[in-house]
């Protein structure tokens, strides 16, 4: 099987090349078959690989040396272990479902754009696979940049809309800020220990001072903040919803945004050595979770709610990482991938039925028109709200339990966030599916369930959202923490917290009870009387996302712009242009003067030459004086 590992990323790359180069000549069905087929093939190989790793453990496969400088050797190598094989399954599995869904969802596009879409999507999967399979930070960085690029390309997929292009640029720039942190961390490692291979770095932690470790982990975390949309670099993710909905599901919910969690989990040995960074990660994660949840309450765009919900859930995962519950974070990545992809695809199905209407206030009562979408969406809502025995409950519980062990305040805020999550999700659900239809007659006339290429992924994901939690049932509920045991070779610094069973029961009871209360309130409040009018007072602050975009605009973008125009108008125009033009004028002036020497008269020329010879002889006679004069003054 190891001989085939390289095929996992290679197949999507081939798909990218075929669809990208031949997009004008291939028919849509061929494009869709190639695009989805390569991902399916990768998934099958990943599945076999997963079971092989499960039975016989992981390994590192070296292919060739990517960079071979004096002392620095960076191999092109893949690390196939428990952690990466699990991510491979998530990426290719959900990736395949979303490719399948896209085949129907994007069908209105012309051939060329259809091909372009699948090419980008395949390229994304390739980059993401590179990111998780790489055996060192440099390969990870390649994938890291690759997914950033694809995210940019896909957010701006409908590039004729300027706003979408701004959103794409915003995502790219925010990510670049994070990437700088990542790069600096890599350079730091190279400078200190001269290697970037995971195994070598983790074996050489004793060569780092504690300040080194704190700096490297914080810099890596800055990278994660950008990619995984944490405060303060989260604002690109809601705007990224400009892209096609399946893209939001795949890139901006299930896979790419979890790259930061993967990276920190991968580096868990480094992180466990820095208390400071761990606190920072936990606090940033918790703050993001709560903050984004408050914004989600007042959003009216169906995708925006889901986007803030994603930011909030990512915050949860970072809370898990910060308190040392690495498995919990990875577990939540997995269950979140199931239910968030489901919710996005469900939203896509709704948008598809509503003819690209995304405002929930114009929906309502879709329950009877879109039965499959409705049921699966409801499953997703229950799963994300953390109601047992759906998957979200188990993963969220594991993080909350670890947070409680670390600091009860973390737990308290976590539970409050969970309540908010349940509230805004059921607000979304009630406004969209319950009550009466509020759209136009024309829309009502065209309401229809989506084709099976779209509903099948919904059903599969709904099933996974229901049972996904059983992969890691905690011991207190009679399980074996299977994921825990599976991942333990890759995650060696897991913090094991000891709490009595009664405490754990109490914690679970409280979080479930809070969520149920929030759900009941939301359904009662919004199924009859949805919020149609504009928000007032504090609600308006939430609707406008705490005015963070405006804040960034005022404290960063505008000052930078005015600095730029200062340099352009004053320094450049007056200073640099003045100097440059001055030199030009000087040259021109001397050209005009020197030209006069060229009189055309032979007598004059010979006179000059004789004078020059006399001067040269004078110099020759006095060479010592002149040289000593020069040495003295220059």
């Amino acid at each position, binding site marked *: 099987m190891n001989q085939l590992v390289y095929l996992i990323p290679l197949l999507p790359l081939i798909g990218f090349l075929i669809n990208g180069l031949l997009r004008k000549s291939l028919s849509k069905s061929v494009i869709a078959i190639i695009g989805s087929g390569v991902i399916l093939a990768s998934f099958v190989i990943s599945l076999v690989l997963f079971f092989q790793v499960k039975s016989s453990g992981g390994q590192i496969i070296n292919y060739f040396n990517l960079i071979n400088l004096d002392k620095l050797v960076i191999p092109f190598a893949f690390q196939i272990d428990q952690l990466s094989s699990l991510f491979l399954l998530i990426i290719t599995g959900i990736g395949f479902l979303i490719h399948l869904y896209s085949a129907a969802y994007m069908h209105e596009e012309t051939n060329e754009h259809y091909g372009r879409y699948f090419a980008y999507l395949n390229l994304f999967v390739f980059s993401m696979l590179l990111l998780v399979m790489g055996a060192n930070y440099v390969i990870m960085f390649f994938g890291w940049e690759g997914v950033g690029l694809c995210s940019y390309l896909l957010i701006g997929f409908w590039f004729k809309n300027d706003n979408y292009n701004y959103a794409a640029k915003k995502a790219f720039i925010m990510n670049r800020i994070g990437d700088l942190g990542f790069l600096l961390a890599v350079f730091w490692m190279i400078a200190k220990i001269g290697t970037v291979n995971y195994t070598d770095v983790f074996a050489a932690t004793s060569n780092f001072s504690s300040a080194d470790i704190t700096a490297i982990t914080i810099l890596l975390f800055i990278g994660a903040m950008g990619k995984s949309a944490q405060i303060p670099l989260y604002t690109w993710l809601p705007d990224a919803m400009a892209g096609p909905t399946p893209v939001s599901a795949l890139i901006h919910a299930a896979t790419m945004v979890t790259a930061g969690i993967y990276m920190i989990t991968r580096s868990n040995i480094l992180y466990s050595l820095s208390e400071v960074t761990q606190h920072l990660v936990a606090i940033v994660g918790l703050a993001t979770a709560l903050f984004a949840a408050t914004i989600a309450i007042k959003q009216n765009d169906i995708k925006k709610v889901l986007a803030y919900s994603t930011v909030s859930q990512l915050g949860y995962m970072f809370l898990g990482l910060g308190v040392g519950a690495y498995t919990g974070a990875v577990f939540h990545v997995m269950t979140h991938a199931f239910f968030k992809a489901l919710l996005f695809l469900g939203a896509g199905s709704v948008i598809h039925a509503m003819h690209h209407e995304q405002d929930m206030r114009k929906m309502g009562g879709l329950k009877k028109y879109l039965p499959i979408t409705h049921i699966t969406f409801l499953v997703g809502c229950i799963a994300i709200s953390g109601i047992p025995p759906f998957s979200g409950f188990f993963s969220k519980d594991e993080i909350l339990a670890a947070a409680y062990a670390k600091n009860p305040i973390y737990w308290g805020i976590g539970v409050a966030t969970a309540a908010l999550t349940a509230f805004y999700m059921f607000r979304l659900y009630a406004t969209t599916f319950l009550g009466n239809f509020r759209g136009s007659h024309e829309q009502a006339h065209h309401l229809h369930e989506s084709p099976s290429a779209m509903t099948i992924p919904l059903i599969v994901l709904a099933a996974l959202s229901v049972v996904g939690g059983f992969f890691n049932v905690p011991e207190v509920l009679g399980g074996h923490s299977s994921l825990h045991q599976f991942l333990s070779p890759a995650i060696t610094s897991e913090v094991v917290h000891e709490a009595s069973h009664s405490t754990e029961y109490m914690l679970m009871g409280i979080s479930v009870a809070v969520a149920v209360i929030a759900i009941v309130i939301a359904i009662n409040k919004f199924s009859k009387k949805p919020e149609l009018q504009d928000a007032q007072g504090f609600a308006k602050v939430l609707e406008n996302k705490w005015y963070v975009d405006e804040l960034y605009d005022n404290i960063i973008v505008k000052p930078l712009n005015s600095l730029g125009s200062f340099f352009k108008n004053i320094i450049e125009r007056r200073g640099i242009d003045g100097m440059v033009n001055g030199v030009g004028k000087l040259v021109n002036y001397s050209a005009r003067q020197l030209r006069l020497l060229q009189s055309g008269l032979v007598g004059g*020329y010979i006179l000059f030459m004789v004078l*020059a010879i006399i001067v040269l002889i004078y110099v020759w006679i006095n060479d010592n004086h002149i*040289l000593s004069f*020069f040495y003295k003054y220059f």
Partner: protein
Amino acid sequence: MPERAELGVMNAIIFSALIGVVMMLGGIVIKSNAGIKLLAIILLFILLGSHLAEYYDLFNIHIQTHGMLAKSRFGMFFNTIIISLTLLYVLLSGDEIVKVGTYGAEYFALIFFSLCGATILSSYNNLLMLFLGVEIMTIPLFVLTSSEKKNLKSNEAGLKYFLMGSFSTGILLMGIALYYGGTGLFAIEASKAANEAQQAFRILLPLGLLFIFISLSFKVSAAPFHFWTPDVYDGAPSVFTSFMATIVKTAGFIAFIKLFELRSVDMGYSWKILLPLIIILTLLAGNITAVFQQSVKRMLAYSSIAHAGFMLFALYNPNDFGKQGIMLYTVAYSLATIGTFAVLTKMKDYTYEGYNGLAKTKPVLAATNTIFILSLAGIPLTAGFFAKYYMLASALKESTSNLWLVIVAVLFAAVSVYYYFRVIQAMYFKDGNAETTEIKPFFKTLLIIIAALIIVIGLMPSLLLDLFYA
């Protein structure tokens, strides 16, 4: 190859003189222009073949020169280069040469005689041979310059060249006489005994070298002895300007470098002042004056002065780096200049305006000319870049204290971009209807080959330099 020092580079010298005679006689028999051109090309191939035969030790004429001429790898390689360049030049511009006047065969014969002088300069070992070489090389040029008999400018240029050339020859002879007075020898490789014998007149040696230095500066048009260059280059028929600015000029540098290689020590400290002084003056006169020119031809005349300033850098390190550099510079500069002059001769209007819109009417000419210009300006990926690099590096190899001079040279190179790029600007970015005479496909193909050579050498200069050491 010191063991063969007594033997001159005989094949190239003898055959170039011979083919000159054959060409002259051929002119009596052959009347058609095409026939004359064909004969010239055939003769040049014979010359190249005979030279290569000697190069690879297949066949050569042994003549005992008693140390007047010396055979060296450097000289042999240089001869290969200039003969090949002449061949390329005749292939490219043969049609224009016969069109200058009614004596097509004589023009070719004069070119061959001049080439003979150049081959002597690459192998002289004695100041008398230096003198002979310089004169054999330049006297045909006086005639070629004024060959457009009915054009006053051409006549004026020829006369000016002759007058000033005589002046500088006088200085050369005076230098040689002083050298002889100082050492009792004409050989540039002086024996120790002879040096000691003339201890009393030792002062005459450096003074003689100074005069030779001045005279050679005139020949390569280094400032402040460059005044003849713009007038002569501008007045001469363009097609001969091309020959003068490339093959003749680089041969002058070979003579220069050979002398410096052996004798710079005798100049004492003074060359450390004189050389940078002349380099700066040359760069200044060439680059700055070129800026204000309206005629591309005159601009190229000044630019050839500027290039002389760069080639003078080779004198800093005449043994090793400078030698490689001057080879590279000869090839890079000559290819680009021959190419850009070939385009110029096809233009009806020699001013910058005359090039307006050439890219639309003659895209191949414009594209290849752009590559020639880029190479002249020393832009990377063209041969001109590495040529300049080797020149500047040879100064730095001699001593890092020359850094200031290198910086000055780079700044002047930046100035040169201004007047070079005006040509590209005119060709590509200005509206106009550039008129040219008839362009043959063979001409275009040759231009493309030259442009490709420039790029290949620009990417891998080692290809050429390895030949030098092979």
